[in-house]
């Protein structure tokens, strides 16, 4: 295994981008990353694209070839691969690109992630998101994606005394972070009361407990470490990549208040990186719902099980705390264009580790962790990045 560096990043604004198509977004992010890496194009050995459901959102499959083609790479006949793991599609695409470079198969790989969600209506969009759950044994019986997370939330409240207020504080904090991110979908702070009084979606979760429907794309360029300096002065090293899976249906787990896939992927990643949760200063975690961030900060080992809500309410995950969680605004405020999310998390960490995060910069960030989840924890990807001094 070779060391791998990120030498370029690119991302679009996230939001309801009515005037931009799926391919517009993918190419915009890809070109930005390639430009950031000072590549001319012909150096690229392979392309990986994370995308959950273009087939349903825009009735287009064969996304790898599409993005390669419109990025101008089709003439070079490079391998182009689409990767899908529901909400973890981006994180998993990143991992595939990382493995390809680390193995020595390729030297320079572009990994993108994109989703165009607003070409369908809200109801259909919600139904498509639910395809990440078990269609035959959950969705068919009326379990929506928010409802499955509401089941987790209700049980977490029951077992650990987590409160609606504590969950609401996840949204408040992430909106605050989002207000510092010019590319976030929501750049406005919100008050706890607004979260608590937002219309119920799936009780106990309200609308402000849910990440929005978003369009967007993000991309990174990966390069073997020994060639990285050729292209950039600020390579960021991929310290580790951990992946784990679990039952597709939430109900089939021993416990619904933890994601074992998260803790196992984290354990694998921490082992590879030679560190643990205490060695991380900044983390982008999968907060598609407020309860998801509480689960994540527990399962990743930042806080003991059951104390994620309390820690959040106490500000222990905010910018300025020992571990800054979701400085980009997270899925909640930055937005959640599903396939793009896992890559956008990595992009945010690169900003942080390069010291380019502006008003939301975590001072002295040495290591960052990205946590990307598919479905209700059936896939989890944990990526750890480190500053190269």
């Amino acid at each position, binding site marked *: 295994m070779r060391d791998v560096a990120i030498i370029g990043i690119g991302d679009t604004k996230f939001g309801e981008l009515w005037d931009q198509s799926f391919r517009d977004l993918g190419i915009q992010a890809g070109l930005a990353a390639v430009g950031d890496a000072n590549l001319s194009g012909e150096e690229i050995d392979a392309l990986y694209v994370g995308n959950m459901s273009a087939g349903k959102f825009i009735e287009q499959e064969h996304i790898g070839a599409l993005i390669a083609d419109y990025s101008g790479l089709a003439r070079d006949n490079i391998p182009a691969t689409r990767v899908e793991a529901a909400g973890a599609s981006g994180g998993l695409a990143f991992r595939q690109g990382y493995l390809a470079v680390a193995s020595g198969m390729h030297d320079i790989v572009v990994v993108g992630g994109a989703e165009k969600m607003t070409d369908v209506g809200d*109801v259909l969009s*919600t*139904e498509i998101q*639910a395809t990440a759950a078990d269609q*035959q*044994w*959950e*969705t*068919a*019986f*009326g*379990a*929506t994606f*928010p*409802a499955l997370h*509401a*089941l*987790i*939330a*209700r*049980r977490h409240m*029951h077992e650990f005394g987590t409160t609606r207020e504590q969950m609401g504080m996840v949204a408040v904090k992430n909106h605050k972070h989002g207000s510092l991110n010019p590319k976030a979908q929501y750049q406005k702070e919100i008050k706890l009361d607004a979260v608590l009084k937002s*219309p*119920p*979606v*799936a*009780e*106990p*979760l309200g609308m402000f407990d849910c990440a929005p429907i978003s369009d967007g794309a993000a991309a990174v360029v990966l390069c073997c470490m020994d060639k990285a300096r050729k292209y950039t002065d600020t390579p960021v090293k991929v310290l580790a990549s951990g992946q784990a899976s679990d039952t597709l*249906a*939430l*109900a*089939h787990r021993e416990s*619904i208040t933890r994601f074992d896939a998260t803790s196992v992927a984290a354990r694998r990643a921490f082992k590879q990186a030679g560190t643990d949760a205490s060695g991380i200063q900044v983390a982008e975690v999968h907060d598609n719902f407020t309860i998801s961030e509480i689960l994540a900060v527990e399962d990743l080992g930042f806080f003991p099980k059951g104390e994620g809500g309390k820690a959040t309410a106490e500000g222990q995950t905010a910018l300025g705390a020992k571990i800054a969680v979701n400085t980009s605004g997270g899925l909640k405020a930055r937005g959640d264009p599903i396939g793009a999310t896992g890559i956008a998390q990595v992009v945010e960490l690169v900003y942080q580790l390069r010291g380019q995060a502006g008003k939301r910069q975590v001072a002295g960030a040495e290591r960052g962790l990205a946590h990307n989840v598919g479905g209700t924890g059936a896939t989890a990807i944990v990526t750890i990045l480190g500053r190269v001094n």
Partner: protein
Amino acid sequence: MTVARFWRENESRYNLIGTKCGNCGRLYFPPRSVCPVCHRKSLGKMEHFHLEGKGEVLSFSIVHDAPSQFELQKPYVIAIIMMDEGIRLTGQIIDCEPADVTIGMRVQATIRKVGEEGPSGIIHYGYKFMPLR
């Protein structure tokens, strides 16, 4: 067309038929062809078994934003039920007020329409849960 996709599972949807591993005795619902614990040793030994249909609410949510299939029923209750046999499944709780549902509440399975493919398509029937009589 989801005709065959649903029809294939009618037995489990109507009558809560799961599988029991002939090697270790663990129970699964929906049916599995391989036991996640015994792996290869379970092959060919996964036997059908019938859940009695009684259990208790492990967690629940009152769904307000519903897929089009469930538009007429919202707000409705979706829950994870811990069946008396020790396995869990996801289903709606009906025939009671959402506000009356609690964690630990005893429920029993019944059968209802779970969906249909428009006014001219096939109707899907399957289990839902109601408060235990």
